[in-house]
């Protein structure tokens, strides 16, 4: 089993699980708290949650894989979110995404091997007038073109 970056936080995770022990219906709440704590949901964490709440690992993973918010891979230092909501889409966000994927050498949903960037697609950031929009660690960058999007990334190198 691959090493997880969660050992240091195990005690806190145990506390979260203990507060919901034996309550399968609390699964999503616990997943949120665990991901907030650790940053992602590796297998060991999922097993601990399954055991604690009394659900199967299959159910845990099924829920995680359903919601894009949950991730089983560590996120990069910089979280790049490209909006593909309707307004951004018609103003060219697919080209932005395509270019960023090429630039970073990863697909949306993945992180770079050096742990610096992760890339995801989101639906509407509420800044449609600035479309196409992307955020980097919650800071918005608007009116992008493929070249300017790449230039934005350079700021975070």
């Amino acid at each position, binding site marked *: 089993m691959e090493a997880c970056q969660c050992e240091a936080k195990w005690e806190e995770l145990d506390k979260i699980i203990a507060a919901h022990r034996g309550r399968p219906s609390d699964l999503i709440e616990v997943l949120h708290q665990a991901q907030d704590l650790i940053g992602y949901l590796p297998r060991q964490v999922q097993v601990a949650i399954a055991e604690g709440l009394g659900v*199967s*690992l*299959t159910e845990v*993973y*099924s829920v995680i*894989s359903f919601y894009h918010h949950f991730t*089983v891979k560590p996120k990069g230092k910089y979280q790049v979110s490209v909006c593909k909501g309707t307004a951004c889409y018609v103003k060219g966000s697919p080209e932005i995404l395509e270019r960023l994927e090429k630039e970073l050498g990863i697909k949306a949903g993945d992180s770079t091997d050096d742990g610096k960037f992760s890339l995801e697609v989101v639906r509407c950031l509420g800044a449609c007038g600035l479309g196409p929009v992307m955020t980097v660690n919650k800071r918005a960058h608007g009116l992008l073109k493929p070249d300017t999007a790449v230039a934005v990334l350079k700021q975070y190198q």
Partner: protein
Amino acid sequence: MSTVKLTIDNIPVEVEAGTTILKAAEKAGIHIPTLCYLEGINEIGACRVCVVEVEGARNLMASCVAPVAEGMVVKTNSPRVRMARRLNVELLLSNHKMECPTCIRNLNCELQSLAQELGIRQVRFEGKKSEYPIDDSTPAIIREPDKCILCRRCVAVCEKVQGVKAIAPMGRGFDTVIAPAFQDKLLDIACVECGQCTLVCPVGALYEKDYTSEVWAALADPEKFVVVQTAPATRVSIGQEFGLPPGSINTGQMVAALRRLGFDRVFDTDFTADLTIMEEGSEFIERFTKGGPLPLITSCSPGWIKFMEHFYPEFIPNVSTCKSPQQMFGAVAKTFYAQKAGIDPAKMVVVSIMPCTAKKFECQRPEMRDSGYQDVDYVLTTRELARMIREAGIDFRNLPEEQYDDPLGESTGAAVIFGATGGVMEAALRTAYELITGKTLPSLDFYDVRGLKGIKEATVDIEGTKVRVAVAHSLGHARQLLERVKAGEQYHFIEIMCCPGGCIGGGGQPIPTNTEIREQRIKGIYQADAEMPIRKSHENPSIQALYREFLGKPLSEKSHHLLHTHYTSRGKY
């Protein structure tokens, strides 16, 4: 209970409140096609094949989940309904891996039949197709997600009936796939390989690993001496594959078919079912008189054993050390019989005909080599045997009835009932009672342990001593029973069979296998028992001879070496 009046296709119907439109229509003799629906197990309205038009409602309703209402006017066959059904099935076909002529479920596929029934002659859409690898990691079950239509019947059976939860929907939308967590391989997870998913899969997305080519090769090899054994439950199910009514007893035809396929000896797992009773009955008597550990739990069902090893390893000391009849057969065939018949066991191939997919896993367990060779070489399910019979062009229905070969073909009524839930318990009680008391049982029929009730309990009076027994079938019920035991409930003897109804409802049985068919097969099993001249295992002359000539007595050193085994705690992850 209040009732509701409605009309379906202009036919007035009166049903209990809360009834679904589908059930109400059935009562009125109207067939509504379904696909994802599995009565009592998967009622989720997902596939929308069963849609109907309800007057006053804007949308079509999924009749499998929509309840009836007073004065409802339902149309099951309007142009709008027919168009919607056709469209829904066309959409399923648009991304289906259509290789029907070579698919294992060809001619027994619900998607295929539905497309025919709905008159679909072309698929108007070319969908994007998924490309998942085939998972053939286990010796028993193959997953082929590209054929999956996401009906979730397998998920429901695995969760609700078996309580195993090996597979679930992963991802969402087009990317949804029914799989283990992390899309792990079935081999690496707590799947018990019971094959109930293969019974309910409407298409060819989950099916048994086929070993017919290995068996054909052995049969064609002049160097090999190929013996076959047939499990109790197969004789009341094989006929269904050839259009005979479910539950009809076709023992003689099956023996004849196996001979025509070229097996050198046709033997019966019923013989070693009797042997199991001798060993397990003696084990029970010993534990009962010498203080445990009790309850003793039966060990014939390999799906149950693997389940116990994954989820309840604390019960390992309670589970009988007896190998299953299949494995006892292999060990006896390659030692006692090989010696007696002067056959080199290295050249002997033992094939089993089983109602079960988990038996394929069982025969490959590393500890199942006590004869010095792999005791059982290949396991074929009832379905695979039927395939071989068809391939050989044998007219099964018109075969003459033939007899099993001696001596591993002689058996009793106690052995045949191993095929149904409660049967191992009943067979054990018939023998234990007589061995303990030295008296003849007044009645051989223990009705309390028969039938499809999930958990059955009985108290048997053995000369003043009350023996408390319990019987569970399906792993969901097994789980409930084991939790009762953990909570302090006292039993002396427990029978657990993995599949609903016992082996007659096994994962390797003909498709469909549903509650009605299970009941018919159970009826066949007890009829076969009643027709046997000998109905108690300890009275089987060939078993008596086996002990006299070879094993000594039950639980002897030789018995322990060949007929008993041990278990492994496997963990859940």
